[in-house]
């Protein structure tokens, strides 16, 4: 993984000192509250429903065991003993004290971490495929390009006060696992006919109130031009983006209102003047960043292991976990193991400090001391020897991190909702739990197969409901919690936004409604291999609507 040099470290240290000074001025009353708000947001600090919330960057989801131990320490020392992994591969703490935050940031800096630009209207943490470097369908590891982008975006002098937040996601594989089409800029790393590396640039995607699928602004961008082209897009957006209406300020609206052709013309004109300037990447720059992301020293002998097959045959619980939570690795004898953060009774994405410490130890023992956070709010050990899978699984069972539900119905994406967020209309975590109870039987879940259930507590869509195969959105009706359901959304290759089923349903009917949708699918599917999404794309909304509304109509007032 990337390691800081003296320049990176100096920047992060200076940032801690700067924020310490700003916090002190705010607490002394010499920095106005509204200005401190902008500054603290750019250091990850929100003020939520009950307490401040601190969001810490995990660039492109890659984390070391040492860093995770520090997060455990922070959870213990400054918080209530746990943290929450988010849909953008970051981690949030929900209970820090404002006056402690400079110390927390100083602790983070000792392990090459920070909270810079994790909120506020600036360029946010860059996300990438959580299987980067080990996925079988990958062209090149996207992380060197992500790190280049991270550095270019960090404290960029011109783009700290954008019209609205700005998010990058990278993908370099046949299957898009990082939802690139619903980001402000999605970068697809590709190869041209001549065998050169470059990018397909997608712009103007986004979730939230007005979800939009991004459009290709440039089909081929040479490898050395990533940063100059990004700078051109950002400059045009900074000058053109709307500042009169917060709901129209994202680049997706700028592109829509300007028209892609005109927007592209402006970007290209800007780019032409800067492409050969200092942002042009040299081969040696790229090679330097790539040198941090080489593959581990795999042992060839592990391929001849037979114990894994024996355990699979003997232990059906292990076999169920292996079937669901392991993915094939490039290297024979190795596997990719998912740690499910979706156990019954915990909020999706939550991890306690004890779990964090234990996971760090397991990562050291079984996965070269590194792990990944996924945008589905789970964790991944990317490089586990086949022979180690059984002891790893046993350890994970004890930690309640071995629920074999990756990609299944209870592997929900869910925002903190009513429980923490001041913007929420409705509880998302409690609904997740009810659905967990309803679909507790794993056999049943396995029968249903791959399905993405995404939930957000309000229109802001932090739970990515509009790209869930089933999406649930909390809405407020005269102070009561209601839920709007969408079907057929997807953030994968052919990204699509879900269609609304009809009127929203009340709190007491939401679990029934989901059950009805699932039953309908099971009846309609062509065969066991037809996933929920494929089935929905074939049959469309009518049969689901027909099944849903006799049940839900009883709860719908008008």
């Amino acid at each position, binding site marked *: 993984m990337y390691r800081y*040099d003296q*320049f*990176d470290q*100096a*920047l992060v*240290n*200076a940032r801690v000192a700067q924020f310490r*000074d*700003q916090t002190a*001025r705010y607490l002394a009353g*010499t*920095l106005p509250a*509204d*200005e401190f708000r*902008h*500054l603290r947001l750019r250091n990850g600090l929100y003020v939520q429903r009950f307490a401040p919330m601190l969001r810490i960057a995990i660039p492109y989801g890659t984390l070391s065991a040492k860093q995770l131990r520090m997060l455990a320490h922070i959870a213990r020392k400054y918080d209530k003993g746990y943290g929450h992994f988010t849909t953008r591969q970051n981690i949030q703490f929900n209970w820090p004290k404002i006056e402690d935050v400079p110390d927390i940031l100083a602790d983070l800096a000792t392990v090459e971490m920070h909270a810079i630009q994790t909120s506020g*209207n600036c360029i946010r943490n860059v996300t990438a495929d959580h299987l980067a470097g080990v996925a079988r369908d990958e062209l090149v590891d996207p992380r060197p390009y992500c790190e280049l982008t991270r*550095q*270019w975006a*960090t*404290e*960029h*002098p*011109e*783009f*700290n*006060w*954008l019209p609205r937040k700005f998010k990058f996601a990278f993908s370099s594989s046949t299957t898009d696992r990082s939802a690139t089409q619903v980001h402000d800029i999605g970068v697809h790393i590709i190869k041209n006919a001549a065998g050169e590396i470059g990018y397909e640039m997608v712009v103007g995607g986004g979730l939230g109130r007005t979800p939009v699928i991004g459009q290709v602004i440039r089909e081929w961008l040479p490898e050395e031009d990533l940063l100059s082209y990004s700078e051109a897009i950002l*400059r045009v957006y*900074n*000058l053109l983006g709307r*500042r009169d209406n917060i709901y129209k300020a994202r680049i997706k609206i700028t592109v829509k209102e300007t028209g892609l052709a005109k927007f592209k013309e402006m970007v290209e004109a800007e780019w032409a*003047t*800067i492409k050969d*300037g*200092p942002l042009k990447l*040299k081969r*040696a*720059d790229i090679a*330097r960043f790539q040198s941090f992301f080489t593959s581990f020293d795999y042992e060839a002998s592990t391929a001849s292991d037979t114990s894994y097959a024996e355990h699979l045959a003997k232990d059906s619980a292990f076999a169920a976990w292996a079937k669901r939570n392991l993915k094939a690795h490039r290297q024979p004898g190795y596997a990719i193991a998912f740690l499910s953060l979706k156990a019954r009774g915990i909020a999706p994405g939550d991890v306690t400090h004890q779990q964090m410490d234990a996971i760090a130890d397991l990562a050291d023992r079984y996965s070269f001391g590194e792990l990944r956070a996924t945008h589905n709010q789970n964790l991944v050990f990317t490089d586990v020897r086949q022979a180690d899978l059984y002891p790893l699984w046993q350890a994970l069972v004890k930690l309640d991190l071995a629920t074999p539900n990756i990609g299944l119905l209870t592997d929900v994406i869910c925002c903190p909702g009513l429980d923490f967020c001041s913007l929420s209309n409705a509880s998302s975590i409690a609904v997740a739990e009810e659905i967990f109870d309803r679909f507790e039987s794993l056999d049943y879940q396995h029968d249903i197969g791959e399905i993405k259930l995404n939930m957000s507590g309000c229109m802001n869509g932090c739970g990515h409901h509009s790209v869930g195969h089933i999406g649930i959105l909390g809405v407020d009706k005269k102070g009561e919690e209601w839920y709007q359901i969408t079907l057929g959304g997807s953030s994968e290759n052919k990204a699509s936004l879900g269609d609304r089923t009809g009127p929203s349903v009340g709190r007491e009917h939401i679990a029934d409604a989901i059950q009805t949708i699932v039953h309908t699918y099971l009846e309609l599917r062509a065969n066991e291999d037809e996933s929920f999404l494929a089935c929905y794309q074939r049959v469309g909304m009518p049969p689901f609507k027909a099944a849903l509304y006799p049940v839900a109509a009883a709860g719908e007032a008008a």
Partner: protein
Amino acid sequence: MSLLLDALGQPIRDLYLALADDAELPPVAAVIVSLSRWQAQADVLAVHAGAVAVQLPNTSDVLVLDAALLARPMLVLDFPGFADGRAYSQARRLRDRAGYPGRLRATGAAVVADQLAMMARCGISEFALREDQPLAICQAALSLEARPLPYQAAQDRSAAVFDARRG
């Protein structure tokens, strides 16, 4: 009068008089006029005995400024609120693309200690501080020694981290 600092944080005397659009042009003084006044009274202002600087709205396209404007000794950019960063991009374009060599002054409610360093990096050369700003903190914010080498090459330093690493 608000305090005026140069790019290194040294207080400088403000020789310019900011002129309201309907105020009479004084005979010799250096003045700042709005872009619309400049456009309406170009002939008169061109022969004015004192220096004439022009204040640009942060919505104006600085790439279409004519030679007479780019020949001004000073252009003034507006940073109206804490969250409105359009003038940062105007400054970059004026320096990098239009090659504007004159003084670039920042005015407005966002000319505060916490924004000065980034303004300087985008090519702002003087700062009309908001009234409530403590001098020492503003000077500290502008001190080059206190600031680590940034990732991006910009106006205030020729080299950035990328160049330093290239050796």
